[in-house]
């Protein structure tokens, strides 16, 4: 009993050691967070958006070309989809919106969202902006749309994405088959991470924290 009672100088020394240890552990913890386990998929084979330009709408742009990369120090969340998509696109956008909302305002400020339409015949650039604003009303959003199918294919290829308008009779409503990944792109156009369809908002949220933390370092 007596041995466990700490008094005087030795107690202070122990307290200092304990404090230092705690601080070191906290730092180590922070380090672990910074290089933490990511839930999304890394994309070493994906070329990314450097030198890939598409006509952009939103944030003052009215069809001027925009490179598919984030502004400096930001993270661009990029998606290839179409607005008549009832299931896959809204599900993905909704999961991302929930993930974004769970982040502190300071971290949200480092995010931008863009969507490339695979259905330029029906989706205008402004339509895409309005659509994205429904999910991300406090983030910069870009609608990316080209009627040039080769330009669209080049952009898709750069991300390993693809889309195809499903066979239909003229004048008939149609669907578009498309890959459904969400990409986190940095300011160099590099894909830091990609999330497959069905990723949980919690996972996207924790990944975004890690990516933003790494970006600050």
């Amino acid at each position: 009993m007596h041995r466990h009672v700490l008094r005087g100088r030795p107690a202070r020394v122990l307290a200092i050691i304990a404090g230092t240890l705690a601080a070191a552990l906290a730092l180590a913890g922070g380090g672990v967070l910074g290089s933490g386990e990511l839930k999304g998929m890394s994309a070493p084979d994906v070329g990314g958006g450097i030198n890939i330009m598409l006509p952009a709408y939103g944030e003052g742009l009215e069809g001027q070309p925009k490179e598919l990369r984030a502004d400096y120090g930001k993270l661009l969340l990029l998606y290839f989809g179409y607005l008549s998509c009832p299931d896959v696109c809204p599900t993905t956008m909704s999961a991302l919106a929930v993930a974004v909302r769970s982040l502190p305002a300071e971290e949200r400020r480092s995010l931008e969202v863009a969507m490339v339409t695979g259905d330029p015949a029906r989706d205008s650039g402004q339509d895409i902006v309005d659509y994205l604003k429904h999910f991300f009303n406090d983030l910069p959003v870009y609608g990316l749309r080209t009627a040039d199918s080769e330009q669209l294919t080049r952009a898709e290829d750069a991300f390993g994405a693809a889309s195809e308008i499903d066979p239909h009779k003229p004048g008939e409503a149609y669907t578009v088959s498309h890959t459904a990944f969400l990409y986190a792109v940095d300011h160099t156009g590099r894909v830091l991470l990609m999330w497959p369809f069905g990723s949980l908002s919690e996972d996207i949220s924790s990944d975004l924290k890690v990516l933003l933390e790494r970006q600050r370092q």
Partner: protein
Amino acid sequence: MKQEMEVPMNINPRTPILALAVIALMAFGLTGCGEEKQTETAQQGVTIETPWARTSPANQQNGAVYMKIESDSPDKLIKAEVESSIADHAELHETSMETDGGGMDDSMHGKMSMKKVPFIEAPAELKPGGFHIMLIGLKQPIKNGGEIELTLTFEKEGELRVTAVGRD
């Protein structure tokens, strides 16, 4: 109702056999009723759990309704109809991942595609990325808490009315 009330009044105390017969008939009738109800329950083998639709941006033309369809015995959902104030019409759809990736890793390159299906086998779970009821030509955005009346037709069960609730 009135006649039922008159029946006991018509029972003559001197004819207990008649009274017994009436009681027996009533009992039989009640039993019959009970059996009928049980049969109905057995026929109502399909129940719908948590029907919902995702809220939609103002300019989104199509929507999707999801739900869990429980069924005591195999049945088929063959038709879904939606109120014309909500959407032009509804179709049964399935989203799936294309697997003919031409030798590429499908998980990396597979496209999600959607096709109309003639029926959905019950029991079934209609959920994002799988079976769903597609609302085509939305007339108004689906709002959080908004209600969407649907009539579902099952091969055996017949028609069922459900109210899907909009949520984010």
